[in-house]
């Protein structure tokens, strides 16, 4: 190849690379600027979506300009892109599915960064919503990557969607206790607890005649952010209140009845047996 042609090609390559590199930097800067400007104005979710859109749009523009610099015809490229997309689509079905699921999730917005989700056996805080997956941080500080497709297909629970939550405490009392008195004692404990919301009011219902206890459910509304502390403190308050009122919380026990058709139960007094041997 003649020397001058080589230098022309080199210049084009350099310019193309420059376009792509500069484009990448500009796109990154623009996306960061958008995040800064939209701070306190948009939700984290929308910030993320906006900044990603800005980045990919700008970067694609510069990338295509770079390709044009190398002599690629856009019409040919677009045609090729159609064919390529079919090929790529087959090759990367999972990624494409995750990508589309991610877009659906962004549009539906069932959770935001910072929300706490329960998904199968995992519970954690959403720390990132990306195009292919979301990242959860569990409370024991483990990162879990969940593909967007999984989120679209499975049921998950958003534990932090609403500002208030109800704590349901199941407390068993002995069969010989007065249920109405126990109910009043538990309700009083809840009504006087500083973390319990005044409205909606707490309530207490009988839920089951269990094997060893009559089960009562005390339901108390609390501020979502105080749920963990409130649950623990309420359980302590209920135990104290029941103890003060002299109401027994029974442990599982079994009553054995011996009828007249059975042989008498052999009973051995250990101390007496020892003395007898001596």
């Amino acid at each position, binding site marked *: 190849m003649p020397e001058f042609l080589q230098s022309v090609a080199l210049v084009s390559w350099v310019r193309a690379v420059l376009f792509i590199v500069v484009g990448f930097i500009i796109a990154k800067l623009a996306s960061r600027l958008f995040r800064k400007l939209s701070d306190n104005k948009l939700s984290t979710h929308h910030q993320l979506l906006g900044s990603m859109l800005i980045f990919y749009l700008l970067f694609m523009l510069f990338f295509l300009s770079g390709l044009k610099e190398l002599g690629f015809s856009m019409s040919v490229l677009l045609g090729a892109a159609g064919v390529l997309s079919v090929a790529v689509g087959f090759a990367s079905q999972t990624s494409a599915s995750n990508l589309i699921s991610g877009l659906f999730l962004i549009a539906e917005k069932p959770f935001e960064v910072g929300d706490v989700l329960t998904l199968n056996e995992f519970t954690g805080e959403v720390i990132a919503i990306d195009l292919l997956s979301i990242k959860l941080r569990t409370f024991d500080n483990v990162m879990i990557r969940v593909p967007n497709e999984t989120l679209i297909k499975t049921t998950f629970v958003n534990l932090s*969607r*609403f*500002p*208030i939550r*109800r704590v349901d405490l199941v407390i068993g009392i002995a069969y010989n206790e007065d249920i109405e008195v126990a109910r009043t004692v538990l309700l009083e404990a809840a009504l006087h607890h*500083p*973390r*319990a*919301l*005044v*409205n*909606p009011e707490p309530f207490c219902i009988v839920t089951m005649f269990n094997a060893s206890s009559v089960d009562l459910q005390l339901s108390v*509304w609390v*501020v979502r952010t105080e749920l963990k502390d409130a649950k623990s403190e309420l359980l302590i308050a209920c135990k104290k209140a029941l103890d003060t009122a002299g109401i027994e919380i029974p442990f599982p026990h079994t009553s054995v009845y011996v009828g007249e058709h059975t042989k008498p139960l052999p009973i051995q007094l250990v101390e007496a047996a020892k003395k007898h041997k001596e």
Partner: protein
Amino acid sequence: MHIIDQPAQQELNLEEKQWYSMALGDLTLFFQQNGNELLTAVNYQSRDKPALREALRKIDDLPQGVKVGERLYSGPEEESVYIELQLADKPYQVNADTPIKLGPKGRVVLYVSTSLWVQLKTIDTQKVMTEYPAVIPRMSWVGSSSIEGALCYSAKTAAPSELSQVSRKEHRAITALEIVNDSSHSPLTIQRLSLPLNMLSLFYSESAGFWTESIRFRMDAETGETVIVTSQKPPDELGGCEKISTARDSKQSSRLRTAMKLIMG
């Protein structure tokens, strides 16, 4: 750093390394000037005596079990700090002991009292460095459902309709609420009211104690429409009251109307 004790506006200089205490309601607040920092500590204790407000006084040491809570620095250039009494930072849901029923075109004035807050503010920049409620408030939810509404504070009140029946406590501010039933046919039942305290100012006079602006609720029992009007001052019969702190949220007009959606809880 020095402290002005409001509402008397008495300026006090704290001695270095000397603990001081003041009390309001269940709250006892402790201060110590330690070089360029102001140490604070708090203690909450239910009091038997209903009216309680102790001015700043010297104490030997922090009581047993009370620990330093915060170390305050007012800024690069040592700026003076003062105590300001303020109303709550959220609306108060006031639950009447007994439901109140107002006949068609009926009108009643109720007096309700709510706990004050103590703020430490910088004099020049008027920035709140820290604040504590005189009594730890209970939280409540006001809204049409458990997913739509807002968190606010809650208090039970006898809501007397005679000024002479109002028990004046030194850690509480009284609000005069005029409720008017605009309906010509239906009676209006009131069980709870949401007071937008964060949008009200605090007034004081030696004889009357702490008051807020009077509020008038015009409610239509049939349509549920409510209009609220504040009178910009406490009731006239109290005489001259001095405004000692302005509303936390001064963008009153538009927000007050929004708050009104929450009125009937």
